[in-house]
């Protein structure tokens, strides 16, 4: 073991933020020839655009402010929200009501968004943390379009950080729906379209899915620089654990270069967060 550690330090190293790692993980999940509904600008949109650029050029996406399948030029503009750069070469410029309806009709295969807190059934919070609804410790911006995206897209992918205060037993506020209490038909009983729900929760260190029957969150894959125990330590609840746990590939040098030169050159969305340094060969963390 000591010998291995010695070798490790002699290999090339890679440093990245947890957000960069998550963007890389999600970008690899992007499925060609599908339609995505992405919430606002920021890391989720960057992950999708990176997937499109690298391996899924014919994947389309809509954004809330009504741009249908834009094809922005790289490097991406610093300000994506509603800018002409963000909407460049769309197939249509329309309105929020129209793209929300596209999701209501079942055209949106995937919803992609970020969350402050998520519980074991994939219900998530973007409204307030701590205190009560009337007297919150910290108030946040609200669900935005997350509620309609998580309700109406077939599969929802949620991006967040692996932290105990984010993977909680009970959300301080359920802004947007997961599987509610997990019972069969819970979403339908709330008036949501059948056959929809959270599909993956993605963090830098771990990827989760949901059990088909119980709708409980299930640990599906971990990064090579962490362990199951370390992952569980960062969660308030204990998820199911897949019988065959996959290993997530760490970001590559090429992917990181792409993020820093073409996807988010200013680093506004991905440059912040906790830095992780790994051995580029073994994928193990270097202290």
């Amino acid at each position, binding site marked *: 073991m000591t010998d291995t550690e010695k070798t490790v330090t002699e290999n090339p190293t890679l440093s990245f933020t947890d957000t960069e790692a998550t963007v890389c993980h999600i970008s690899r999940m992007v499925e060609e020839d599908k339609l995505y509904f992405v919430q606002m600008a920021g890391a989720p949109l960057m992950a999708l655009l990176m997937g499109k650029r690298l391996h899924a050029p014919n994947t389309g996406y809509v954004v*809330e402010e*009504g741009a249908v399948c834009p094809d922005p030029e790289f490097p991406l503009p610093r300000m994506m929200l509603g800018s*002409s750069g963000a909407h460049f070469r769309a197939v249509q410029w329309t309105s929020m*009501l129209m793209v929300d309806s596209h999701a209501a009709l079942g055209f949106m295969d995937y919803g992609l968004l970020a969350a402050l807190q998520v519980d074991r059934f994939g219900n998530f919070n973007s409204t307030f943390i701590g205190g009560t609804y009337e007297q919150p410790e910290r*108030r946040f911006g609200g669900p935005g379009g997350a509620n309609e995206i998580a309700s109406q897209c077939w599969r929802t992918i949620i991006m967040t950080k692996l932290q105990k205060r984010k993977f909680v037993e009970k959300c301080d506020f359920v802004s947007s729906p997961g599987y509610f209490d997990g019972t069969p038909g819970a979403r339908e009983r709330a008036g949501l379209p059948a056959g929809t729900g959270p599909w993956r929760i993605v963090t830098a260190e771990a990827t989760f899915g949901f059990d088909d029957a119980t709708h409980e969150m299930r640990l599906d894959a971990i990064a090579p620089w962490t362990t199951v125990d370390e992952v569980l330590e960062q969660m308030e609840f204990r998820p199911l654990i897949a019988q065959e746990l996959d290993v997530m590939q760490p970001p590559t040098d090429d992917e990181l270069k792409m993020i820093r030169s073409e996807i988010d050159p200013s680093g506004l969305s991905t440059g912040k967060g906790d830095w992780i340094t790994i051995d580029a060969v073994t994928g193990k963390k270097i202290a």
Partner: protein
Amino acid sequence: MLEVITRGTGEFKPPDPDGFREYVRDHKERRLVSKLVTEREAVSRFVSDGDYLAYDLNIASRGPGSLFREIIRQKKKDLWVMAKFTWTDVSLLIAGGCVSKVDVGWMEFGPILNRAVKDGSVKLHEWSNGALAYRLLAGSLGVPYLPMRYLGGTDTFAQSGAILTEDPYTHKPVCAVPALNPDVALIHAHQADMYGNTRIFGAGVSPVEMAMASRKVIISAEEIVDPIEIRKQPQRTTIPYYFVDAVVHAPFGSYPGSVQGLYTADLEQWLAFAAAGAMGKTDEYLENWVYSVSSHQEMLEKRVGEAKMQALRDADTLKEGYYD
């Protein structure tokens, strides 16, 4: 009669489609008359204390920046603001002392908002961006409510004015939201003629439904065009004149936000507002950008300057699709 399964507890103005029709009959201008006014006149005539205020987009992108500042300058009070796909504009209006209630879809958060929620000076009601746009759609159709396929089951629903009911056709549960007819709407556009015929180029949130659903509509436009130009290309009209009460000529009206095809956003200006909020210096910010100048035009001349405006125009290099 719909049977209600669950009902959110949030406060909302009860839908009144017949009342709205009567307002339209008695107050909306049908004549082709010039509605050109200044920001000052538009806000003093059409924004009243206590109004429900809606606006399309936000201070980041094609929002009515010059009208926000004029509302603050005129110290309008007790507004109920629709925060649908908004940005720091909600905080700006709160900092100006103009707001008592906010319907939340999304807004940029920070110390100004946090303080207002904690000290109870601003009361929030929860919806979502889409739910608020959907309420405008109901308002624009002249119906009292619309069913929809989201919101149900969440705490957002519980804090909203939505209901869950059994759909009389499919007999499945469905959510329904009440129509919203704002007292006043602010919409920033690329072009308008003096009558109010309005052109917006590019994507938007819900400018059409908002204009149709609102009692009073103020358009601010980057450019005033000859009415014959509108009639030569009617396909390009976003909002026809009879919905509109006032037209303000507002070049750089979205400042510090962008207008697609014309100029980019001034990021430094937002950072200045965020920094002022964080350091408790919002009063200084408002003094500099709002109170110490008498108009939008004076702000552009004295606080922004032609060099900065030219730089923002030059930075918007992607014109394709907007003025073709």
